[in-house]
C-alpha cells in the first residue's frame, strides 16, 4: 500500500500521509516521493497541505515534515493537520475557547484574567483591568482597561454595552482614550483592522459582519 497520496487541487497540493507506519519510514518515503516529481524552473510556487490522518505528531516532527517539503524548490507548507491531539492540547483548547461569565464590578486596582472568552456582567471602573486570551464582552460600562487576545490573537474583539475605556488592548495593539474628556458610546466593539493594523471601533452590528465566526467553537482550532 502506498504511504503517501498526492492530490492536486485548485489551491495546490494535498498530501495524505499514511497513519499506521513508523514515522521515519514515512519521512523517508516522503522525501523519495517528492524528489520524483519533476518540477520546472519557471513553475509558480505551490502551496502544500499535509493531512496526517489519525497520526499524532510532536511539534518537532511537524517541523521535520515541513523541512522535507520546504527543501524541495517551489513548495511551501500551508498547513499540517492531524485528526488527533493530546489530552493536554484538548484541555488548553477547551479552556481557550470557553466562555467564562463573571458577575461583579471590577474596581480600581483590580485585575481579572480569564483563559478563553470573558463575559463580564458588571462594570470595569477607571483603574480596573480585565484581560482574556479570547474575546471580551462587557454587559456594563467599560471605563478601565480591557485586553483581549492576550496570547496574540488579533482576531479577538472587545465589546461593551457602554464603551468609555481608558485603554483597549488587542493582542499587541494598544489604543487609548483621547486626552480631552469624551463621552462614551453605546453598544460598540473594538477590533483590529487588518488593513491598518490598528484598533478601530465600530457598532456591534458592523463588527459581527467582520467577524462572522465570533464565538464559533472551531474558530481557534482551525487557526491553530
Amino acid at each position, binding site marked *: 500500500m502506498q504511504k503517501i497520496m498526492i492530490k492536486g487541487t485548485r489551491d495546490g497540493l494535498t498530501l495524505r500521509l499514511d497513519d499506521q507506519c513508523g514515522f521515519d519510514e514515512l519521512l523517508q518515503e516522503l522525501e523519495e516521493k517528492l524528489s520524483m516529481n519533476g518540477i520546472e524552473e519557471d513553475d509558480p510556487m505551490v502551496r502544500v497541505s499535509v493531512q496526517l490522518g489519525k497520526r499524532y505528531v510532536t511539534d518537532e516532527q511537524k517541523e521535520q515534515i515541513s523541512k522535507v517539503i520546504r527543501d524541495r524548490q517551489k513548495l511551501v507548507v500551508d498547513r499540517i493537520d492531524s485528526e488527533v491531539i493530546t489530552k493536554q492540547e484538548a484541555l488548553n483548547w477547551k479552556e481557550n475557547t470557553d466562555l467564562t461569565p463573571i458577575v461583579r464590578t471590577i*474596581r*480600581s*486596582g*483590580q485585575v481579572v484574567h480569564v483563559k478563553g472568552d470573558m463575559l463580564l456582567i458588571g*462594570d470595569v*471602573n*477607571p*483603574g480596573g483591568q480585565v484581560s482574556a486570551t479570547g474575546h471580551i464582552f462587557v454587559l456594563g*460600562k467599560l*471605563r478601565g482597561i480591557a485586553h483581549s487576545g492576550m496570547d496574540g490573537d488579533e482576531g479577538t474583539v472587545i465589546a461593551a454595552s457602554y464603551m468609555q475605556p481608558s485603554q483597549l488592548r488587542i493582542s499587541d495593539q494598544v489604543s487609548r482614550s483621547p486626552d480631552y474628556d469624551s463621552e462614551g458610546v453605546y453598544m460598540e466593539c473594538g477590533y483590529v483592522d487588518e488593513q491598518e493594523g490598528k484598533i478601530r471601533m465600530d457598532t456591534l452590528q458592523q463588527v459581527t459582519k467582520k467577524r462572522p465566526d465570533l464565538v464559533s467553537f472551531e474558530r481557534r482550532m482551525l487557526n491553530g
Partner: protein
Amino acid sequence: MGEAIVVTSGKGGVGKTTTTANLGTALALQDKKVCLIDTDIGLRNLDVVMGLENRIIYDIVDVVKERCKTKQALITDKRFDCLHVLPAAQTSDKSEVTPEAIQAIVEELKQDYDYVVIDCPAGIEQGYKNAVAGADKAIVVTTPEKSSVRDADRIIGLLEQEDIESPKLVINRIRNHMMKNGDMLDVDEIVSILSIDLLGIIIDDDSVLKAANSGEPVAMKPDSKASLAYRNIARRILGEAVPLQNLDEEKGVFTKVKRFFGIRS
C-alpha cells in the same frame, strides 16, 4: 451588643474625621451610646475636632500595650455623657498596633455601646488594615473629584474582600454650582461608578471648618445645612428613610436614597 462602623476613604483629607465626629455627635443626639475610635496613629485629629485634646491621658497604644484598661483611656464628650472617644497616640508609630489588637478592643467596646465608629487613616496600608479589622459595616467618604472617587473605588474593592457588609457612600464637600456646570462629577455619576448605596451628601460649608476649629462638631448647630446632612445620615443609620437634602430650592432631583443600615436585633 452594638455594631462597629469604620469610616474610610483611601484618599486623605476628604472628611473621614469630620464625618466620624459628626456622625458620633448626631447619634448621641438620638440618645445612642456611642464610642469613637481614632486609629490614625501618629496623626491624631479626632480629639481636636471634638475639642477634647486637653483631656487625653492614655491612648489606644497604651491600651494595646496593656499600660491601661480600655475604660481608662476613654474620654467623655463635653456635651454628651453617652459619647466617648478613644484617642490615637500622637507619639507612636502605626506598627505598634495590630489588626488583631484593634479587633479585640472593638469587640470589647461593642458590649457596652450601641455604635462604635472607627476613624480610619488615609491609605491602604497597615493603618487601614488596623481600622477595618473589627468593623461590621463601612462608610466610604468621597468628594466629587475624580481622584477621590478613584480611591474610593479602590477601597470599596478592598472592603469587599473583608467580612463586612457592602459599604455605604457619603459624598462630602459638594459645591452645587460646580456640579451643575459640570465642573465636578455629579451625585448620580459618582453613585453610578461606585455602584454602592448612597448614605448621604454634605455640601462644602465654611461652618464645618469653623466648627472643627472650635472643637464643636457642626452637627450641634441646628441652623446649618451640613449639620442637617450629618443628622440625616445618623437617622438613616438608625433605619429611618430620610430623603436626600435638596441642594437648591428647586424640586429635589436626588431620590435615590433607599433604606440604609437595617436595624439589628
